[in-house]
C-alpha cells in the first residue's frame, strides 16, 4: 500500500522536473517574461492559474472539515463568498488594469514607492504581506505533510516531510519563474477537480444518495443543516466579516494581484473572471458532500483521522494515489505562487541571482515550516487561513488609495501600520478579538477606510 503511494509521488515529482525544464527552456532572459510572462496570458490559462492559486490544500482538507463541523452555513462562508470574490475581482481588477501603467508595471511595492512621497508605503506593504502570508503558506505545508506522514510515515515526527516539501517549493519558485508555476497550476486545477468529484461521488453513493444523506443528518444533527450551525460560528457577523476580508484578498495578496496584471487584455480578463466564478462553484460544491459524509460517519473524530479515513481509506488505491498527488500539487501551486510573488515584491528589477532577496524568502520558508509544525493552530486549517485574509485586508486602503487617488496621503501608511500592529496584538491574545461584540478586524477596516477617504483632498480617478 505504502509502496503505491511512493510510486505516485515519484511520478508527480518527475512531472515537476519536466515542467521546470520546459519552463526554463522557454523563458527568455527578460525581467518581464520571467516575472510577468510579458503580460500576455490568455483567459483560459489565466483562470486555471488563478484558480490553482486561490484553491489550495484546504479545498480538499479544510472545506470538507468545515462542512463536517459547522454544517451547511459554511456554504455562505465558502461558496457564496468565493463567487462574490470573483464578482468583485471583475470590477476592481479591470479598474486597476486601467489605472496602473501595464507597460511599465513591475510589482506592487514599486508602484507604491512611486505613488507616495515616502518609501514607508513600500515598507509597510512588504511588512504586512510578509507577516500575513506566513500563516497561509504554513497551512499549505501543514496540510500536506500531516497527510503524507499519515499515509507514508517516515520517522515519528513531521520534520522529514516538512523539510522535503519546503525545500521543493523554494527550489521550484526560485528556478522556473512564473511560467513553471503556471504549468504546475494548470496540472493542479485539473487533478484537484477530478479527485474532488470522484471522492464526492463515492461519498454520496456510500450514503445511499443525496436525499438519504440529508435525511440521515436531519435525524441525527439537524443543526448542521441551518445557520449558525452546531457550534454557533456561522452567524451573520462572522459570515460578513469573512466575506469582506476574503473578497479583498484579490487585491492585497501579491500572488493574486500579479494574476490581475498578467492577462493580455481587459476583454480576456473579464472572460477569465467569469470562468473563475464557474470554477469556484464547481470545485466547492462537491466538498459539501465529502464533509457531510464525514459528519455521518466520522462526526466526533479529530480532523486528521477524518481526512485519512474519508479521503484515503474509504477510497480505492488509485483514487488515494491521485488524491495524494492532488494535495501535494495544490499545496505546491499555492505556496510556490506566494513565495514567487513575495520574492518579486522584494526584488523589483532583476532576474539576476540576488542573495539578499533569496535569503529573505528562504527565511520566510523556514518560519512557515516552523509555524506549520509547532503552532497551536495545527488542526484548524481554515481558522489559520482566515488570519491571513484578515491581516492582508488591512492593506486595502493603502493599495486602493495608491491606485485611485490623485495624490494619496501619507497618513494612510501610518494608520495601516498601526492597524496591523493592533491586529497582531489581538492574534497573540493581548487585546480582545471583539470589541463591544464587534470583530476587531471590521472596526479597524472601517476606521482605516474613513481616515483614508477624509484625508484625500485632491480627488480621485473615476475612469
Amino acid at each position, binding site marked *: 500500500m505504502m509502496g503505491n503511494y511512493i510510486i505516485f509521488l515519484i511520478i508527480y515529482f518527475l512531472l515537476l522536473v519536466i515542467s521546470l525544464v520546459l519552463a526554463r527552456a522557454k523563458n527568455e532572459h527578460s525581467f518581464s517574461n520571467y516575472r510577468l510572462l510579458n503580460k500576455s496570458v490568455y483567459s483560459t490559462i489565466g483562470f486555471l492559474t488563478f484558480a490553482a492559486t486561490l484553491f489550495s490544500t484546504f479545498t480538499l482538507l479544510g472545506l470538507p472539515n468545515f462542512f463536517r463541523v459547522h454544517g*451547511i452555513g459554511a456554504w455562505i462562508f465558502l461558496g457564496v463568498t468565493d463567487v462574490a470574490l470573483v464578482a468583485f475581482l471583475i470590477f476592481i481588477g479591470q479598474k486597476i488594469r486601467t489605472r496602473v501603467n501595464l507597460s511599465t508595471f513591475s510589482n506592487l511595492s514599486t508602484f507604491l514607492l512611486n505613488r507616495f512621497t515616502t518609501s514607508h508605503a513600500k515598507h509597510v506593504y512588504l511588512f504586512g504581506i510578509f507577516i500575513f502570508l506566513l500563516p497561509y503558506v504554513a497551512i499549505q505545508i501543514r496540510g500536506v505533510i500531516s497527510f503524507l506522514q499519515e499515509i507514508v510515515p517516515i520517522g515519528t515526527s513531521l520534520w522529514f516531510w516538512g523539510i522535503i516539501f519546503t525545500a521543493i517549493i523554494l527550489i521550484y519558485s526560485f528556478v522556473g519563474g512564473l511560467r513553471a508555476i503556471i504549468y504546475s497550476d494548470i496540472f493542479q486545477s485539473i487533478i484537484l477537480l477530478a479527485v474532488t468529484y470522484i471522492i464526492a461521488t463515492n461519498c454520496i453513493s456510500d450514503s445511499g444518495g*443525496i436525499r438519504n444523506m440529508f435525511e440521515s443528518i436531519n435525524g441525527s444533527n439537524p443543526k448542521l443543516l441551518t*445557520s449558525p450551525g452546531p457550534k454557533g460560528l456561522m452567524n451573520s457577523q462572522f*459570515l460578513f466579516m469573512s466575506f469582506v476580508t476574503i473578497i479583498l484578498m484579490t487585491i492585497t495578496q501579491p500572488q493574486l494581484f500579479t494574476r490581475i496584471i498578467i492577462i493580455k487584455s481587459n476583454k480576456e480578463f*473579464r472572460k477569465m473572471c467569469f470562468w473563475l466564478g464557474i470554477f469556484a462553484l464547481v470545485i466547492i460544491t462537491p466538498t459539501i458532500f465529502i464533509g457531510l459524509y464525514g459528519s455521518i460517519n466520522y462526526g466526533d473524530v479529530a480532523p486528521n483521522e477524518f481526512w485519512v479515513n474519508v479521503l484515503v481509506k474509504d477510497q480505492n488505491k488509485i483514487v488515494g494515489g491521485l488524491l495524494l498527488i492532488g494535495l501535494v500539487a495544490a499545496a505546491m501551486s499555492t505556496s510556490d505562487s506566494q513565495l514567487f510573488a513575495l520574492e518579486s515584491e522584494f526584488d523589483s528589477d532583476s532576474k539576476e541571482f540576488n542573495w539578499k532577496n533569496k535569503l529573505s524568502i528562504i527565511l520566510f520558508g523556514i518560519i512557515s515550516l516552523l509555524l506549520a509544525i509547532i503552532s497551536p493552530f495545527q488542526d484548524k486549517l481554515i481558522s489559520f487561513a482566515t488570519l491571513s485574509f484578515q491581516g492582508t485586508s488591512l492593506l486595502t486602503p493603502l493599495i486602493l488609495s495608491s491606485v485611485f487617488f490623485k495624490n494619496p496621503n501619507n497618513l494612510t501608511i501610518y494608520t495601516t501600520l498601526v492597524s496591523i500592529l493592533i491586529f497582531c496584538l489581538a492574534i497573540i491574545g493581548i487585546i480582545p478579538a471583539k470589541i463591544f461584540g464587534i470583530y476587531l478586524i471590521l472596526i479597524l477596516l472601517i476606521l482605516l477606510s474613513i481616515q483614508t477617504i477624509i484625508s484625500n483632498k485632491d480627488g480621485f480617478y473615476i475612469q
Partner: protein
Amino acid sequence: MKNLIDKAYILAFITLTAITFSPLILQNNSAINKYVPLPTLLIKGFIISLCFLALMAIYSKLRDDG
C-alpha cells in the same frame, strides 16, 4: 456609458451582498426543504451564487459591447 454600466454593476453587487446577509437568507430556514430534499439554506445560497454569476455575465457582455 461605461461609467453608467460600472455604477449599475456596483449597485447590483452591493444589493446582492445585502441580501446575502439579510434574515431572508440566513434565518427562518427549515433543515430540509418541503419540496426539494435539500436544506433550505443551501438552496438559497446556490441561488445567490448563481445571481452573482449572472451579474458578472451581464456586466461582461455589456462592457464587451462597449
